[in-house]
């Protein structure tokens, strides 16, 4: 199982140097971190059950949006991680899932359009089996098409998270398959089965504790 490392941490906040006036030069505070994370395995398929169901080992992959890194599974009971991924299930570090302040909701719109968490937003807290990010096809973040046996992230869905420490982040899941490429609808079933459960997502994390994503 090859896991590609995190690629491309990009500083999105543009550093603007104020012109030389008599005032003191403000030190620009870069608090918004944007990144694209590729190929995070999320309980990938290790084999087939006796009745032919594809199965993984059943463990979550934890990710810290704050440090932009995968957190070892042994730290599951800590506030080191912000989101957990297992198959199509996404959890937050809060409620029944973890000790942190995690919560989430799904915003309908594009990633760029969401410049600030709307004031009237309601964050949901994990209460297994009802997670803040609703599980199930066409109910939460993805669409499963039985005819093609493919899972596709719904376009126009931004997952807005409160991290374990109570900061704000927005995530757009871009792809669910290895290499960030959804197999063709006509690809063989075993290709689809064994290349699934690899997350590619884009996120922005606001370190200053505000709800701004600008």
């Amino acid at each position, binding site marked *: 199982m090859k896991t590609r490392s995190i690629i491309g941490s990009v500083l999105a906040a543009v550093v603007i140097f104020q012109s030389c006036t008599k005032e003191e030069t403000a030190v620009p505070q870069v608090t918004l971190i944007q990144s694209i994370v590729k190929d995070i395995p999320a309980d990938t398929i290790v084999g*087939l059950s006796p009745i*032919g*169901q*594809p199965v993984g080992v059943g463990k979550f992959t934890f990710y810290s949006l704050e440090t932009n890194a995968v957190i070892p599974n042994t730290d599951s009971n800590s506030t080191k991680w912000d989101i957990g991924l297992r198959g199509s299930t996404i959890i937050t570090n809060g409620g029944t899932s973890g000790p942190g302040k995690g919560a989430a909701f799904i915003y309908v719109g*594009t*990633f*760029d359009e969401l410049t600030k968490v709307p004031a009237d937003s309601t964050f949901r807290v994990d209460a297994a089996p009802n997670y803040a990010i609703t599980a*199930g*096809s*066409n109910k939460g973040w*993805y*669409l*499963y*098409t*039985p*005819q*093609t*046996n493919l899972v*596709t*992230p*719904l*376009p*126009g*869905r931004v997952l807005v998270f409160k991290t374990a420490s109570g900061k704000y982040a927005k995530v*757009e899941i*871009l*792809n669910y398959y290895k290499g*960030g490429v*959804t197999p*063709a*609808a*006509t690809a*063989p*079933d*075993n290709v689809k*089965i*064994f290349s699934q459960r690899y997350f*590619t997502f*884009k996120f922005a994390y606001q370190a200053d504790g505000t709800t701004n994503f600008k």
Partner: protein
Amino acid sequence: MKFAIQFPNLKLFLTYLFSSVLFIYSKGQLKEDSLFSQSLDNVVVTATRTPRLMGNVAIPVSVINTKTLYQAGSLRLNDILAEQTGINIVDNFGKGVQVQGLSSEYTLILVDGEPLIGRTGGVLDLSRISVRNIRKIEIVKGPSSSLYGSEAMGGVINIITDGSGVNKSDFGLRYGSFNTIDGSFNFSRRVKKTDVTASVNYNRSAGYSLKPNQQQKTVEPFWKTVQQLSLNHQLSENWKLGSGFRRNVTYIDNTIEVSNQGIAVLSKGFERNDEYNITPYLQYKGNKVRTTLRGYITGFESEQLLSVKGSSNTYNDRFDQLFSRVENQTDWQIREQSAFTFGAGHIEESVASNRYDSLATKRKNSISYFFAQHEERLTRKLTAIGGFRFDANEAYASVWSPKMALQFKPDEKISINISYGRGFKAPDFRQLYLNFTNLAAGAYSVFGSEVAAAELQRLSALQQIDQVTGVMGGLTALRPEISGGLNLGARLKLKDGMQIGANLFRNDITNMIVTDIVAFKKNGGQIYSYFNLKSALTQGVELDLDKRISKTFTLKAGYQYLYTADKDVLAQIRKGEIFQRELTSGSSVRMKASDYAGLPLRSKHSANLKLSYETAKGFFATTRLFYRGRWGTFDQDGNGIINRSDEFAKGFLHVNASAGLSFRKHWKLMAGLDNLLNYKDILNLPGTPGRVGYIDIQFNF
């Protein structure tokens, strides 16, 4: 809510019949009228259900004659239809036809005026129908439910086999790629006052593989036979009696490789489709009145048997459909300039299948209907037709289907037609009674609307239901799908034997039946049922050109531009509610209406060109090109619609060529090559094997 009208009983129908017979007797003998005695070749019957000169029909209609069929080397109905303007063949559950952007389930296929049954997933496989014994094919575009009832939404394709009264017989034998053998014998004789037409066709092929290293062939070896007999007896000057008998068997040798959750399982077995029909009739033909009493009994039995290699598991699928109908049609030439047609009929339909419940449970439906049509030549230049049909169904709501058409012919060279009609498609047995659970792919189930509530209750009692969705409340009796179709056409005869035609069309379909999720199972599987939810539109223009270049060369060309859309999707896009995912970045953006490519499997552009050369001595050569632009296949970016460039199959160009000659009076020899460019698309065109050749000999006597 069911809406049943009490017309569906045989008693009323018989009363109707009796009165129409009385009516005929009261008319007595009148002088011979040209209306009923047209010569056959330039006469069409499908558009108005009465014989009319081709140029005098206010509805878009085209004809493919025996010569065209022969010269194109066509064996099956899909071969020849693929070369026609505005018709696409879609390879899905067999070769289905697409007319004016409407799919196979909305196109009625008739053989000698009687509907063919036996559809899979709504698709009537055209490769079931041999075109070796037929006289012509008439294609009517736009809704014609006013005359034909259900399924006549996109159009009607009528295959006319009848060769009555022509003393002509032939033997034909063909050999082609993939060990394809086609043998046919057609016989037609008039013996005293009886016309006998008989034909037999046998077709087989070894099939082919497009994907190497697979045990399962793309097209499995098959054989098909058609046997047909028609008897027509002139009882007296005015009365005629007859019947047709037809049987069509298809046998496919199946080896199926099923990948069940990644494990390839090989199954062997067969698929057999057996279709028969009997068409007795009694006709009275006077000078001004003609009335026909027809019976039609047809059955379609389909069986699929597969046994899994190395296990005792067998898969058996059976589908038995029976359709019988009795109908009367009366044509009355009231005056020289006005003709009236009316009729009524009763249909009994039943299906037994283990896809539904069990073979022991017969699902039934009965339909009674009546129709009327009036044609009036208002002035020398203007003709109007108006008609309607009413179908009262037992299993779903009743339907009115009106139709109006106008033809304006300012002179011999120009004709302008406008027609509007409503079409409908009755919910089929699958949509009403299907009971299917797929354990392999996501454990989803599909239940027909009539059985869904009971099945949900059953699963709920077993504690298998996790959650019921909002659409559950809408789980009501299905209504027929309805379309309104407008056609505006013009035809111009120019100098030097050149003709051009154009037809603008627009079809608005409402009440479209689609599947939607009614509940989720605890194991994660979804439960689907059928709903009248969608509305769609198809519109476009069809252009054709016919030109005689010289005494020996003729040119035909056609083009269709097609725009289709799901109306609800279109409205959502306009409100900015639909997103798409960019191909390279993967980011979501709001969609524009111009990004929407409409309904899947539709090509925006399609065109054809045919060049033929023919000498008086019986030598001919043809080159036929047809182009089909790219078409949407599957959604890849999660919005469920076709919009992104990777969601299309590539467009293609096919070039077919044939040549032949007649010799020694009785013999005809021809050879041909299809798909000269050897175009293949394994995924999207499994029915296109690449370049194929054939040689064909015919003996006429």
